[in-house]
């Protein structure tokens, strides 16, 4: 008997010993498991010509990645070694599936609706009070987050829980249309109805995602109501618009299904990633796009001497953001680890790191910089017109809603930038006014939505002739 049990006892003793060692070892190195979108953080190795130099003497020309710099910075600041295990995901659903299958992370960066879903399912740990203490200068997030973003966050709740207690923003943007001004007029691109435009038959792409496609369809469905003058001028315009575009009742979903089926017959394709390249090569002349990817597309097209524009339709736009949330399963009761996670968020919210990330990714950070003027200066540097050039007409572009009233955030820029990269990165006030956050659907809404999407994408027997003979 004893002989049989001996290996087990030995094994048990050994593993206990090992865990003891592990705990001892932890006081030396803390491992932070981070999951983020692919290509969503600066990886360093900048050329000298890409370097930025600011009026206060700050020079940005990093050699190492943000992650490596964080490990170093944390050791210098807190005297504690940390190792970041950095992994990436391709879609929110992929991340969620990974977590439910059993992958463990401490800090992840999903989009707003996934954050809300995770919050509803009790997967998240709230940020500590110390994290929001604006008296501490090292709280770069709390001190630097844009007043506009802070206000949007403040209004978001799910099941009575406030989203801003659980999520710290990272990047944000709008949903709009990239278009080729030689083929598509600005007026055509000013409405989501563009997707149904017969003149552009099979020359537009739509995102292959239920939420983005549905948003466009619902905007078309409610077009007359939500663009009516009385509606726009009413006092509760924002709330009313929010209510309209967050409807998931059967009637709205059915109407959207019809519109999306018509869109499917009219457009080039539903795409996950090909749209950007197809826009640049000219295969399509307009495409539904997130603002950050729109910037990327316009930059790429510029290299081929093609001028593309970005438009946010008049009906509404989906104000989206990706944010850092801490997972309870990863952190457990480990308050030191939580402190490291919060420090990571603060580190990526440091103005100079914000600029690094924005340059690398092309998306817009939620950080306006607080006391620091670096981010605003960066925007002016990037988009502000050269004052010596007087041939072109210059316009004033006001982004003070984002940078706060106390900063002089009016950028003098060329007229085309109000339709191009600057407009995509920092939309104008009127765009912000008509933006809504599309929340995560409830269970019934979600089922309706998925069924609708399957119906749209499946083979429609009624149109068999049309589909087979193309």
């Amino acid at each position: 008997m004893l002989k049989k049990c001996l290996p087990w006892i030995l094994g048990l003793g050994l593993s206990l010993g090992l865990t003891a060692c592990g705990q001892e070892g932890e006081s030396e190195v803390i491992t932070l498991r981070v999951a983020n979108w692919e290509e969503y953080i600066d990886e360093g190795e900048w050329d000298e010509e890409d370097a930025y130099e600011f009026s206060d003497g700050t020079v940005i020309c990093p050699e190492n990645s943000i992650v490596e710099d964080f490990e170093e910075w944390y050791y210098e600041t807190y005297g504690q070694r940390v190792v970041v295990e950095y992994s990436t995901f391709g879609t929110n659903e992929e991340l969620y599936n990974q977590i439910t299958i059993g992958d463990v992370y401490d800090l992840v960066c999903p989009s707003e609706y996934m954050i809300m879903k995770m919050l509803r399912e009790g997967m998240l740990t709230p940020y500590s009070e110390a994290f929001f203490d604006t008296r501490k200068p090292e709280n770069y997030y709390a001190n630097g987050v844009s007043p506009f973003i802070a206000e949007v966050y403040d209004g978001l709740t799910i099941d009575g829980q406030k989203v801003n207690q659980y999520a710290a923003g990272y990047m944000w943007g709008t949903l709009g249309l990239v278009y080729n001004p030689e083929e598509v007029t600005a007026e055509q691109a000013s409405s989501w109805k563009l997707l149904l435009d017969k003149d552009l038959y099979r020359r537009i792409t739509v995102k292959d995602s239920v939420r983005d496609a549905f948003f466009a369809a619902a905007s078309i469905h409610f077009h007359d109501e939500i663009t009516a003058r009385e509606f726009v001028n009413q006092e509760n315009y924002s709330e009313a618009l929010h209510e309209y575009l967050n409807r998931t009742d059967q009637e709205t979903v059915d109407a959207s299904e019809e519109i999306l089926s018509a869109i499917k017959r009219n457009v080039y394709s539903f795409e996950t990633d090909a749209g950007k390249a197809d826009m640049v090569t000219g295969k399509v002349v307009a495409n539904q796009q997130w603002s950050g990817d729109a910037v990327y597309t316009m930059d790429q097209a510029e290299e081929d001497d093609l001028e593309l524009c970005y438009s946010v339709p008049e009906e509404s736009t989906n104000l989206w953001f990706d944010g850092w949330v801490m997972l309870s399963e990863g952190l457990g009761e480990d308050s030191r680890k939580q402190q490291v996670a919060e420090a990571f968020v603060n580190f990526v919210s440091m103005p100079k790191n914000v600029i690094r990330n924005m340059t690398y990714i092309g998306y817009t950070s939620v950080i306006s910089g607080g006391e620091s003027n670096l981010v605003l200066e960066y925007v002016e540097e990037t988009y502000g017109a050269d004052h010596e050039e007087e041939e072109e007409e210059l316009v004033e572009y006001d982004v003070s809603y984002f940078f706060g009233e106390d900063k002089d955030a009016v950028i003098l820029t060329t007229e085309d930038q109000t339709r191009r990269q600057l407009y995509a990165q920092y939309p104008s006030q009127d765009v912000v006014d008509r933006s809504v956050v599309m929340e995560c659907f409830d269970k019934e809404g979600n089922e309706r939505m998925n069924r609708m999407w399957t119906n749209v994408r499946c083979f429609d027997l009624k149109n068999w002739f049309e589909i087979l003979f193309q």
Partner: protein
Amino acid sequence: MKYTFHRKQLAIPYAIFLILFVILPLLVIIFYAFTNDNGQVSFHNFIAFFQSGKTVGTLLYSIVIAVLTTLICLLIAYPTAFLLAKTGMRSGSALLLLFVLPMWINFTLRITALKEILTLIEGNLALHPFANTIICMVYDFLPFMIMPLYNTLTKLDDSYIEAAQDLGAKKSLVFWRVILPLSVPGIVSGVTMVFLPSMTNYVVLDMVYNSTYIMGSLIGSYFSAYDWHNGSVISIILLLIICVITFISNRYAEGEEDSHVNPLKKAEARKG
């Protein structure tokens, strides 16, 4: 203890593989297909699939794509394989390499290249999504049809053909009555290798801008919406289809073998 080796033990590695990666996943799929969210046994998902015109439409659409792909592959592959195997071409195997070579290149890469060529010809690819899907599928799966046909045809004993000719059969009659029936096993394995993958290979559809789902894309869309039950139902339906095809083709292949490959044995069997 003396170790004795049994030949049966050679099967252990594969048995482990089979259990871990074939049988267990299959059980999981069956479990999900026949349960609902509350874990109760339910046939609702199956019934719902066949009640919705849209999902049945997609099943039919996938079958149309698969049948067309298989037929075109067969029409192209058979003469090619026949030429390579039977016309005494010295460079037959070198030529075969030319046909099989594309298999070594990743297929998304090949389709990307083909897409550019098609764009040159058609202008706007999105105007002919169905035709493009078939073209790319055929291009993708052709080697899988040529290989088994080539193998069967090279093994075909020339004495049968000679015997038929000696007995006065015309060339066309030799082909229809001798060569074609004898190559049925090759056709069968070619068809099974092409038919089912072309029902599910939705990457091709994505790449040629065909926004209509086939069975494979339907599984993908259910799974990405965490709907394991409906996704599993589709997998089971596909599994049933392949079972039926294999069953029919095996029957057919056996029958053919019986009547043509070895007439003597057949006669013996009858006597016995």
